[in-house]
Structures are given as C-alpha cells and as structure tokens.
C-alpha cells in the first residue's frame, strides 16, 4: 500500500466510524444507567431522516442536527417509559423501536428519495490542519467529526470525574446501593436513556448530512447493531469506544480498499470481524471479578423496584 492509500483509508475510517461513535457513546450512557436500548437502528434511521428533511426544507444544517437529536430522543423517551415506568421487557421494547423507526422513516422519507440538500463540508482547522499527513487525516474534516473528537474526552471526564457521572454509574451497577444513598434511580435512567437516544440521532444525522448526503431508505444498514456490539467491545468505556468505532469504521472502508488492491479477503469475512472481536472481548470480560473491576453495569436490563427482593 502506498501512502495515499493509507491516508485515504485512515481518514475514511474516521468518517465511517463517526456515526458509530455517536451511537456507541449514546448507548454507553444509556446502558450505564441500567437500561438496554436495542432500538439504536431505529433511532439512527429517524435521526438520519429527520436531519435530511429539516436540512432540505430549511437549509439550516445545525437546526437539522438538533431536530434529528430531538426526534431520536423522543423515540428513546418512549423506550424509557416502557422500560422504566411500565417495566416491560426491554429487549422487546427496543426491537419495537427499531421497527417503528425504520417504518416511519421509510414511509415519510419516500418524498425525499433522490433529492439534494445542503450538507456539511470539510473545514480545515488552522495550524493543526497544516501538519503533514496527520493534519490531512485528522484536521481537515467536517465539523461533526470534530464534535466526535470532543465528545469522547468530555463523556469520559463526566463519567469518571463528576458527581453526576458517579451517580450514573452507581445506578447501573448497584441500583439498590444508589437508592439507599438517596439517588433517584428512575429519574437518572430516564435522563440517560433520552440523552443516549439523542446521540444516536446525531449518529444518524451524520450519515445523511455528511457521510452520504442524501436520503435512502434503511441507509443505516445495520450500523445501529454494530454500535450495540461496540458497547460491549468497549467494555462501556468511552475511550475504548472511540478506538472501536474508528477500527470498525476502518474495517468497512478496507473492504473497498482491499478489493481495489485485489487482496482476496472476501467482504463477508471482513463484515464478520466486528462481531468476532466482540466475542473475544466477551470471553475476556466474562468473569465476575473483571466485571466488577470495569464497572460493567450489572443491573443492565433489570427493572428496579425498591420493595422487590432480588
């Protein structure tokens, strides 16, 4: 491989990884609170569609992004209501969100197939963008990629260094302990389920406003599921999520690169890698001790009730 190919693969990896990154960070926040939201695919689709539609109709990209996040957040609110207040099975509720999101976006999106709308363009960061190679790869991208850079350390700081992050982790890991310390378990779960949904909406919007600026039905093409797998791959940690998102993004880019370079690894095998990696990670993190060490949200998927015995 020559240098050009490496630059284009790495920068492609970052672009392809960015929607995964947003969705994964969102799901990490949700799952850290103890709620499993499998509806990512649906929320991302609604985000992608809403972002595109708003950008097409108003021409305002940032408004489009905010609308995408709001709509996905709304879907997540539905999931929160079903899982936290009604205490229904979270897997079932999550799957319902997937079908709801893909159905609604497909239906409303018919009018937008094949039209053009404003999209994000690359913006070179002064100074940093001038560094040879690295500048081109990292700092000559669209603004949402930069938001991705920023969101990771911010969420990390939030999770591990602030009081609110501590509350969040405690709720997902030991809700009874959090409750006994006067933390409102339901409220925290609502908040982060909604925030997580909004971030997945941002991931969806990235697809239709930057990555492939158009609307195609089911354009997320399974990225919501990959993000769910990535959460486990990252052991619920935002920094590892970044590594994983760019890595998995890179794998999808490599599929084309390898074909071009005529290296015979079938695309199906490449597609398998994310799942394979994740299974390996799961093998290593399955022990109770390791789970406790990393603060894996052990209450994931279990509704909390004060009086019910575990």
């Amino acid at each position: 491989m020559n240098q050009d190919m490496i630059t284009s693969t790495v920068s492609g990896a970052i672009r392809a990884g960015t929607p995964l990154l947003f969705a994964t960070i969102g799901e990490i926040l949700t799952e850290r609170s103890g709620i499993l939201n499998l509806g990512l695919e649906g929320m991302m689709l609604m985000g992608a569609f809403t972002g595109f539609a708003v950008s097409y109709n108003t021409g305002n990209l940032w408004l489009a992004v905010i609308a995408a996040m709001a709509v996905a957040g709304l879907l997540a609110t539905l999931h929160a209501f079903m899982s936290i207040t009604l205490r229904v099975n979270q897997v079932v509720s999550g799957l319902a969100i997937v079908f709801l999101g893909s159905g609604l976006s497909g239906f409303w999106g018919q009018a937008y197939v094949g039209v053009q709308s404003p999209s994000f363009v690359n913006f070179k960061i002064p100074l940093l963008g001038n560094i040879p190679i690295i500048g081109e790869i990292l700092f000559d991208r669209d603004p949402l990629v930069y938001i991705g850079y920023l969101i990771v350390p911010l969420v990390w700081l939030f999770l591990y260094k602030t009081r609110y992050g501590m509350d969040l982790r405690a709720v997902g890991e030991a809700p009874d302990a959090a409750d006994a310390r006067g933390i409102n378990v339901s409220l925290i779960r609502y908040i982060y389920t909604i925030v997580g949904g909004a971030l997945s909406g941002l991931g969806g919007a990235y697809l239709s406003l930057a990555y492939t600026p158009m609307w195609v039905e089911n354009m997320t093409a399974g990225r919501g599921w990959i993000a769910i797998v990535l959460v486990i791959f990252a052991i619920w940690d935002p920094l590892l999520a970044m590594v994983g998102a760019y890595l998995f993004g890179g794998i999808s880019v490599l599929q084309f690169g390898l074909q071009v370079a005529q290296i015979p690894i079938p695309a199906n095998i490449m597609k398998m890698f994310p799942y394979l990696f994740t299974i390996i990670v799961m093998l290593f993190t399955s022990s109770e001790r390791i789970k406790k060490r990393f603060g894996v949200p052990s209450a994931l998927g279990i509704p909390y009730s004060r009086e019910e015995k575990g």
Partner: protein
Amino acid sequence: MSDVVLRLSGIVKSFPGVLANDHVDFTLKRGEVHALLGENGAGKTTLMNIAYGIYKPDEGDIYVDNRRVKITSPHRAMEYGIGMIQQHFSLVPSFSVAENITLGLKEFGIFPKMESVKKKIESLSQKFGLDVSADSHIWQLSVGEQQRVEILKLLYMNARIMILDEPTAILTPQETENLFKTIREMVKNGASVIFISHKLKEVLKISDRITVMRHGRMLDTIPTSVADERILARKMVGRDVLLKVSKKPSSPGREILEVENLWSRGDKGQYAIRGVDLKVRSGEILGIAGVEGNGQRELAESIYGLRRYTGRVVIDGEDMLPLDVTSRIRRGVAYIPQDRKGLALCGGLPIYYNFFLKVFDSPNFSFNPYMFNPSYLRRGAEQMVKDYSISTPSVDLEAKYLSGGNMQKVVLAREISGSPKLIIAVHPTRGLDVGAMEFIYKSLLRERNKGVAILLIAGDLEEIFTLSDRVGVLYEGEIVGYSKPDESHIEEIGLMMAGVGSIDA
C-alpha cells in the same frame, strides 16, 4: 420521653402471603445500643427497612425526636440522621472506598474534591479504629473491610441513629471484637445504635436493651442487665402456641436414610457441614433444630444431590454418591426446599405445569415430554387442587400469583404424589399463616404414618416439637446433640442452638 430519639409505633407491613410486621412498637433511646433479636424471618430487617424508608409501612407511625415524620425514602431518612447498614451491603463494586462514601452526598459540587474527602476518611478511620484504605476499590476488599466502609459511610454523614443489620454474620471473632470497639466509640460520640442479631452472646455483650421479635411480632423489651442466655433463648425460641396437631406414637421401621461423616462446603467455599452422621427410619420424623446459617441448606442439598459432598449418603441401602438429583428423585427422595419461589416452583409457569415438573422425566408413558397432553395434566392438577384445598381461580394461573401458603401446598402435593420414601423438608412453614401451617403439619404426619421417612429441618422449635419423633441440633455444621421433642427440653435445645454448649442425650 425526651431521651427517645426514634420511636416506631404500631408498624404493620405485609408482603404477598406474609405478615412481616404485625403492630410492632420499638423505641430507641439516646446513646444506647439496642439489640433486636429474633430468628430469621422474624421481621427484623423489614422493620428497620421501614425506619430507613426502603419499605413503606401499611400502617403505623414513625417519630424522630418525638416529632412524627414521614420517611418516604432513604434520602429522607438520611436527612433525619438515620443511617443503615443493610444485611447485604449496598456498595458499588467498581468504586473506590472514597467514591462509595461520597456517593449521593449533596454537599459536593460537580467535581467532588477527593483529596479532602480522603483526609476526612483517614481521620475517621483512625478515630474509630476502622482500618481501610480510601483508595482501594470495593471489589478488592474482604467482607470485613467492606463492612468498615459501610460504617465509614454512616460516620461520614454524621448519622445519629445507626442501624446495623446482622453486622456480625459475616465477621470473624476478631473482627467482631473490633466492631464492638467501634460501636462503643460511636456511642461515646453521641450515636444511638440498633444492633440486629440472632447470636445471644453478642447481644448480651454489646447492648443496653434487648427487644425480641418472633413471627413478625414484638415479644418483649428488657434491659440487658437482667437478661442472660437462658432467658433470651427461651424468649427467642419460646412458647407461643400457634396450633396443636395431635400425633400418634411412631412405629419406626427399617432405616431409610443413613448419612455418615458428611462434609460439604457452603457457597463461599468454607465447610458448612463438618462431619454429620444421622439416621432416619421409615415412619419417623427426625427434626433438625438450629439457627439459620449453621449448615441447614447445605445439609439438605447434599442429601438431595444438589451439592457436592464427601462422606456417605445411603438411601434404602443404596449409596447415593454417584447419583444425580434425577436418579435420587427416581429412588424416592422428595424435597421441600426453603426457597419455594426460586427453587421449588417456576413462578412463570401455570400451576398445572408446576404439579408435574418432576414427572416429565419419568419412564411412565403418559408423561412423554414430547407429546404430553395438557388437558390430561390439567385434569390431574384439578384433582390435586381439590385434594389439597389450594385456593386458586384456575390451574392455569401462573404459580407466582399464589399466596405463600398455597404455593407451599402445590409443592407439597407434587412431592407427596411421587410416593416418596424420604421427604426432606426445610422450613416448610416459614412465613405461612396458621391455617396453611396446620395443613402442612397434617400432611407430613400422614406421610409419616404411612411409613415415609422425614428429615425436617426448621428453625422454629414449636414446629420441631409438633412434628418430630427425635430432635437433633445443628450448630456450625455439626450435630451437637440429640434430644426429645418435648417441653422439658426446650431450654437445653435453645442453648445448643445458640452454641452455648451441648448436653448428652
């Protein structure tokens, strides 16, 4: 009354099928250590969870400093200066000690200043003799250390009323000694302490007053100065006759169960059964008395084949060692476990299913698991519902919706319908009302009269006396002595149960 800091008055709390607290009154005076003594399931934890806002009482009032208060959440309780160490710790495993202690405290800004927190923790742990490093993470700590963290949590937030729920259950004797020192130090610093336990010696050693609870009711409160082990043992296991079931003399036949030098480990890996020998003959009930946690569960599970053991378990002349549970069931072993919801029944399955769970595997053709006939099962189930007067609208109801008594009847019906040779019954009437209790007593006695051998493991002496033909006492994994199931032996048995020394029977 000005020296009363906490008063619970007329507390009633029921759970599905269980009256856990039945008009309980309790007072805590300033600066005292008040012990709450009672058998497992007596309702101690429930009462204190109500004071701490975890459970909502059905009836009754709470007064703090003689003002009536509504404690609707642990947060509220903390505001009134009440702190509680739960029987099962509430710590976040991945958090450091310091993080656990600061969790939920509102005095911090967005970024808690961990350095000053650590300093305060250090000075507290020095003052109260609580040796634990603020930087270690909970998952690295022993249970003893975790308990010190729990105590530090109370101290850090300046709790004036401290509730310790069975704090010594998990401690070594030395750790218990240290805990007592800490408690004394806390009292010196103005705290009032509620100390829950079922160990007589400890209660006598640390408390100023003792309240005894039994079957959800408060029996008595006495100053420790006038109490001794005999009085307490008598009160704790004592006489409150709930029902009398007549029993004709037994006529034991051949030996059905023989256990020889049985050793078995508990869930934490330590030996819970240490060389038990026992024999039960056909047509006889052997009662095993003992305070919970002395190996009851492990004993029952070893005999039934659920737990690994060394030694011999012989049933009707056949060594059971190589046989799994299924084979033991086929050889006529029935089991009424203590955990009826989790182990005996599948709560999410309909009642009729639960009746036949054990026969699905039988060689009997009519229960071919691949082509069984639900209406056939239902008919059988309806008959059992009638025979055992189980009150349920339908045999299709999911078992979890039954009351405790009816659940136990389902278990009993299933176990007895297999025509067993041996029944292992563990706390068969815990938490049941008198009617259900009587029914279960009568059923077990009927089986005994038919010639079944029954191993009855229970904490309630009244139950043991009503049913057994002989009584053995289990203490720290050993049978410390045998006695006769009659009133004149109640104190000796009580003392053996409390580990106060064995007698020769």
